[in-house]
């Protein structure tokens, strides 16, 4: 008996139409990618072309005394210092917690345990909480709860801790950027070759010794990437610090953790929405934006390069 086989190509014959439609849609998706690049290019070029010509050494190193809208005399030193302090304190508090959590998740806990699953889910959820909600959290938790209780314990007459302050803004940002550090560190730890870990155990090293001598040195670039990304994200965030520490204007640099501070991102907001004469103050606005973007961009580029190097090494070791 003959078996009749129907050789029908699943996707039709390779006719001319076949190729044209394929090429058309491929081009269409490529255009989507190009549109994104174009948007990036548009924003950056506009900011850099208009911004760089107004940046001067005097502008970067002046502390404006009274009228910070005055184009001739104003400067952004306190804003640069404020932003730097903000991310620095955030790093001190946030990064260790993030790194330890990542080590626990990847080295100690089993992937199937309930706690691990809840922690992972919490990390993902934390990454999705809107930044303004972090601001409310900072106000409700750090200032109204912790700060006011400290004041009550210390019997201060005036609120010292129970008001917007540098430390509270930084801590709010530290909570916000935890997921960035955790995800990045975990990825780096996972990339350490299993052979090295096993060799370390075979030589009699304990888990902790393996972590400190083998895994952490190997994962260091990944931790660095996570930290850089966290810093870059925090440097540009305005919403979480609106109620937790940023000041509209002050003629001095912050001296204590309980001082308020000035911030580059918030300054961009102030200059673009509260300026008495937007046309006249445009030069300082563009210069401030350029400084902020250079800051976050350099950080991001550095993170991308380090990460690319890690991935290349990982591929080489596989």
């Amino acid at each position, binding site marked *: 008996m003959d078996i009749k086989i129907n050789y029908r190509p699943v996707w039709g014959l390779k006719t001319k139409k076949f190729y044209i439609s394929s090429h058309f849609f491929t081009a269409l998706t490529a255009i989507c990618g190009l549109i994104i690049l174009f948007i990036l290019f548009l924003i950056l070029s506009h900011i850099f072309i208009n911004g760089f010509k107004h940046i001067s050494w005097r502008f970067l190193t002046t502390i404006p005394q009274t009228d910070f809208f005055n184009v001739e005399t104003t400067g952004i030193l306190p804003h640069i210092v404020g932003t730097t302090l903000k991310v620095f304190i955030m790093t001190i508090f946030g990064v260790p917690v993030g790194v330890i959590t990542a080590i626990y998740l990847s080295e100690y806990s089993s992937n199937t345990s309930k706690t691990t699953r809840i922690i992972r889910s919490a*990390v993902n959820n934390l990454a999705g909480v809107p930044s303004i909600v972090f601001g409310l959290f900072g106000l409700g938790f750090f200032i*109204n709860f912790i700060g006011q209780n400290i004041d009550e314990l210390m019997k201060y007459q005036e609120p010292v801790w129970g008001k917007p302050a540098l430390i509270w803004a930084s801590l709010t940002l530290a909570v916000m950027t935890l997921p960035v550090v*955790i995800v990045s560190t975990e990825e780096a730890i996972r990339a350490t070759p299993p052979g090295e870990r096993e060799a370390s155990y075979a030589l009699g090293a304990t888990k*902790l010794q393996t972590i400190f001598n083998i895994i952490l040195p190997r994962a260091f670039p990944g931790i660095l990437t996570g930290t850089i990304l966290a810093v870059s994200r925090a440097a540009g965030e305005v919403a979480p610090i609106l109620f937790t520490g940023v000041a509209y204007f002050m003629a001095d640099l912050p001296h204590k953790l309980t001082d308020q501070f000035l911030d580059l991102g918030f300054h961009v907001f102030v200059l673009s929405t509260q300026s008495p004469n937007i046309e006249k103050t445009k030069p300082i606005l563009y210069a401030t934006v350029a400084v902020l973007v250079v800051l976050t961009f350099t950080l991001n580029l550095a993170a991308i390069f380090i990460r690319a190097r890690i991935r290349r090494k990982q591929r080489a070791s596989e």
Partner: protein
Amino acid sequence: MSKKFSQTEASIQSVTERRGVYFRKVKERIIESLMYTISLSVIAAIFCIFLFVGKEALPIFTGKTNSALVQDPIKPEDIDKYSPEQIRIYLGLPKSKFKKLDKETLIALLEVKMEAFKEIPENFKNDKDARVNTTQWKYLIFPHQWTGYDKPVYIWQPVSNIPKYNIMPLIVGSLKVTLIGLLFAVPISVGAAIYVSQLAKPAIRETLKPAIELLAGIPSVVIGFFALLVMASWFQSVFKYEIRLNAFVAGIAMSFALIPIIFSIAEDALYAVPRSIINGAYALGASKWQAAWQIAVPAAFTGILAAILLGFGRAIGETMIVLMVTSASEMTWNIFQGARTITATIAAEMAEVVFGGPHYRILFLLGTLLFGFTFIANIVAQVAIGKFKEKFEGLK
């Protein structure tokens, strides 16, 4: 003798060694449990966010705030006839502050309130709306015909004689901007994700992917600035609409912030589709595009959906862009009108509210609402991603 001695020495050595091992074990255990405690802090953070944002909004839920303009006054000499709680609510003070006040201060405050009551114009004293507590749920959600309006309206007007806190205009405003942002961001970012993950040559992929991710590095305040100073004027000259700062501009600007998020998650999902089934499609005669569109996209569909959902969560919580680019308006679905969003309202009004007052509580209520929205979006997206990963487990 010497043999025996060395034996004892050896056993002593082994005991100390064992003790060393024991201590090391204890040390390891302690550090492990320390790490465990620290890693729980992430859960604590989520929990605290919910607790402390919700706590400030709690009086709304329990009906303990009163925003009525005209309340039957408590005369200072009658202070003993009322319970402290009644007086606290009448004065609108937070509990912690109320505790610190002695009776004389309270009487002084009641006198001030009495004076203020006398100064309220007569026409308000007879106004039925002046006596309502506008923080009740029926005024927050449903339209109400206020004095002077000819039909029931949804209105957010917290700073007026009779504060009106209807949250529907804010929800509509948020959804309006979010939908415009998603409509623009989803096709572009998913298209780019298909290209980068399936169609592009490896060299193009390696450069295009980080470049697109760089867009995520632009702070939202900078995108807001760009939209406010540059895009708003361009769009107005092209589309010739009346209101310069409207939901349309805000939506497009917001899509710049959404594109990198949706792109990177959708790209991850598409890249995770096993090469074997795509090669199978090639073997059956499919072109690259057909394999991408008919095999990879359906296979990664849950992942792409999760990406869109996370984009939605990000969009509804985006603050600085909408704060800078939208102007306030009444409730309308017209995209060329302004939009008042939940986030922008919180950011703009929190600085001016009376601490612990009804307006303050309502803003925290909005924060809780926002947290709820994004929490649900996140959980659903996580479940979707989990399902997606399960499907292809073990396949390459």
